[in-house]
């Protein structure tokens, strides 16, 4: 065999890298200084005690909180046990996320107060049925790998809505779910529901069917509920997302590097406490960081800074070898319109190219306040496009097709060639909703805009007959957990109905 080629490098996939290793290390060591010198405020005594027993300095203790300073060696120690891979599956194990370096999975966002009614286009408070609808759509979309509620069930009890929300999602999808919980008891109840759904605690241990969303408050604050949830998740083998949402210029420095340092310090605290509590506890660190719009004061979900920061944070987490919670498929537009499509396309591309692991918030409009099934469906196709780009261009004898070119020769064509016949389906991505017809055919098909075609697809999915995912007995058992929670907390609801 003759070998002539040397030093030949290929990109099996296109690459995007925002930060160099040196920049990542600078940010990491700066975060260690923040943890040690500035410290974080912890509003939960048990969390403070765990940190203190592990070597943290505890100062300025007040009635409800302490300032906790973490020496760097505690972080080193925690990093030696924090898993580099986290797995979350669906209840029947058909769907599976293997979250580790350079693996991408897309899914929705949680708990928006509002949704766009898919039939009337009206923006209104989300309900149980909306959450179920979003889950059914997530189930139908091939590029959706996991699900988050995309709405708060606001026609159920306010203090225990999280259980109902989980039930609505379980009714609609068998993909992995990232849940939210109003408090520790909410986590406990939903874990009980998950045991019912997956077939018991041992089955859960074989593969958790949800991860738990936990959000510390920027800057550098870890609330009571947050720390309680974290400790409970460690104790019960629940993988959890620990994601601060710092806002450049408002709850973090306006310089993006400063924001990254702060966000990392916030996540590292989660890593340290979790590994002290139970070495091997599974975290996914995030992931939602952006700028405040200095005219409207909104949290920007569609800004280039949001995409850039998320990508940079992905670089940091790859270096740390901890799975990441990315953000994409979201927009500040109020409707699914040109702006929404544009912003989602940019942030989905960036997240896909950089290789964030659990890429969430697909379907978010209105700065995270409103969900849109239309944006979910439109984004599914954008994800399809970026996945095609990620397949890159393999360069070899077969693909360079010199023989084929020679056969066809100058002036011929390739349409009838077996090389085309055998390869066009795998080589060329075929869209589903994007229009490529000529003018006349497009006109004959009703002259529909992309928005109209997306809308029709939404209705088609919602009205398709599907087999129920939960049988009657299981549904009743799950609903019982929700009802018991309502019963325990009924005294805490307001006298007036909060939402219409």
């Amino acid at each position: 065999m003759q070998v002539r080629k040397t030093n030949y490098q290929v990109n099996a996939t296109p690459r995007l890298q925002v930060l160099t290793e040196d920049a990542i290390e600078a940010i990491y060591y700066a975060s260690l200084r923040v943890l040690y010198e500035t410290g974080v405020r912890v509003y939960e005594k048990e969390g403070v005690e765990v940190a203190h027993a592990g070597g943290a300095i505890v100062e300025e203790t007040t009635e409800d909180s302490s300032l906790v300073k973490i020496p760097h060696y505690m972080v080193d120690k925690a990093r030696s046990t924090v898993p580099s891979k986290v797995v979350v599956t669906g209840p029947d194990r058909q769907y599976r996320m293997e979250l580790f370096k350079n693996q991408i999975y897309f899914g929705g966002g949680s708990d928006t107060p509002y949704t766009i009614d898919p039939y009337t286009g009206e923006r209104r408070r989300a309900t149980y049925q909306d959450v179920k609808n979003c889950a059914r759509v997530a189930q139908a979309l091939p590029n959706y790998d996991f699900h988050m509620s995309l709405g708060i069930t606001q026609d159920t009890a306010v203090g225990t809505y999280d259980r109902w929300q989980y039930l609505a999602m379980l009714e609609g999808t068998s993909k992995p779910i990232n849940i939210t919980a109003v408090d520790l008891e909410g986590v406990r109840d939903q874990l009980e529901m998950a045991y019912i759904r997956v077939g018991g605690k041992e089955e859960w241990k074989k593969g958790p069917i949800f991860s738990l969303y936990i959000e510390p408050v920027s800057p550098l604050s870890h609330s009571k509920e947050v720390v309680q949830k974290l400790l409970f998740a460690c104790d019960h083998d629940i993988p959890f997302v620990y994601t601060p949402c710092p806002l450049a210029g408002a709850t973090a420095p306006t310089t993006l590097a400063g924001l990254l340092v702060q966000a990392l310090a916030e996540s590292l605290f989660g890593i340290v406490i979790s590994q002290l509590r139970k070495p091997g506890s599974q975290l996914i660190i995030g992931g939602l960081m952006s700028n405040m719009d200095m005219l409207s004061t909104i949290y920007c979900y569609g800004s280039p800074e949001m995409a850039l920061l998320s990508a940079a944070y992905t670089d940091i987490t790859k270096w740390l070898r901890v799975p990441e919670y990315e953000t994409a498929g979201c927009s500040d537009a109020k409707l699914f319109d040109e702006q929404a499509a544009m912003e989602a396309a940019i942030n989905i591309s960036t997240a896909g190219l950089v290789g964030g692991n659990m890429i969430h918030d697909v379907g978010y409009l209105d700065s995270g306040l409103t969900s849109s099934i239309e944006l979910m469906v439109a984004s599914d196709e954008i994800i399809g496009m970026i996945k095609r780009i990620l397949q890159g261009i393999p360069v070899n004898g077969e693909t360079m097709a010199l023989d084929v070119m020679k056969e066809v020769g100058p002036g011929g064509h390739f349409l009838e060639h077996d090389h085309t016949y055998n390869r066009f389906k795998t080589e060329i991505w075929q869209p589903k909703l994007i229009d490529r017809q000529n003018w006349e055919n497009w006109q004959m098909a009703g002259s529909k805009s992309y928005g109209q075609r997306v809308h029709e697809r939404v209705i088609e999915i919602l009205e398709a007959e599907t087999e129920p995912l939960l049988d009657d007995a299981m549904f009743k058992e799950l609903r019982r957990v929700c009802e018991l929670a309502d019963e325990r907390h009924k005294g805490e609801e307001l006298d007036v109905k909060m939402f219409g």
Partner: protein
Amino acid sequence: MSEIYEQIATGILEGNVPKIPELVQKALDEGLNANDILNDGLVVGMNEVGNRFKSGAMFIPEVLKSAKAMHAGQELLRSLLAASGAAQTGKIVLGTVQGDLHDIGKNLVGMMCEGAGFEVIDLGFNIEPEKFTEAIKKHQPNIVGMSALLTTTMRAMGYTIKAIEEAGLRDKVKVMVGGAPVDAEFAERIGADGYGHNAVSGAELAKKLVGAA
């Protein structure tokens, strides 16, 4: 005489925090009336800040700097204005409600209200209903402002209004609410007097509630 007013208004517009007290003091030393310094200098500047912000020519950090300068000027005038019997804009007690640690929105409202001439007593975050009622008794504000970011903690706004009622203080204060999941309909349902959809509208609402707008 009008020159110093113009300098004060320009200083506000530029957010010149150290300069404003100097200019106000200079105006007082020249024998000008506190009320006129306020209305013809500080307020003129702040109104222009409002106009420019609305047209997108000024941004939040710049507006906050101006508000801070405004506040510094007013502090100097406060005792004089009180002595002259001139009406103050009013006093606001602000807080993020029980169970909620999110306070960036509440802080923004506080700064905007200070810029609008209010005396602001910021209770902080995670504030229990009783803390609000105690603060009302202690500070006797015109307005109580509450903020929440979560639907679960929105309930605490309802509890707090109830506690204010039960303490017999409801007719002594106006209540305004705000926060991302809050809307006007909810504000009405729990018996608040108004809802601000952002910091600027919060400050405008506060002025309306005390009859200063």
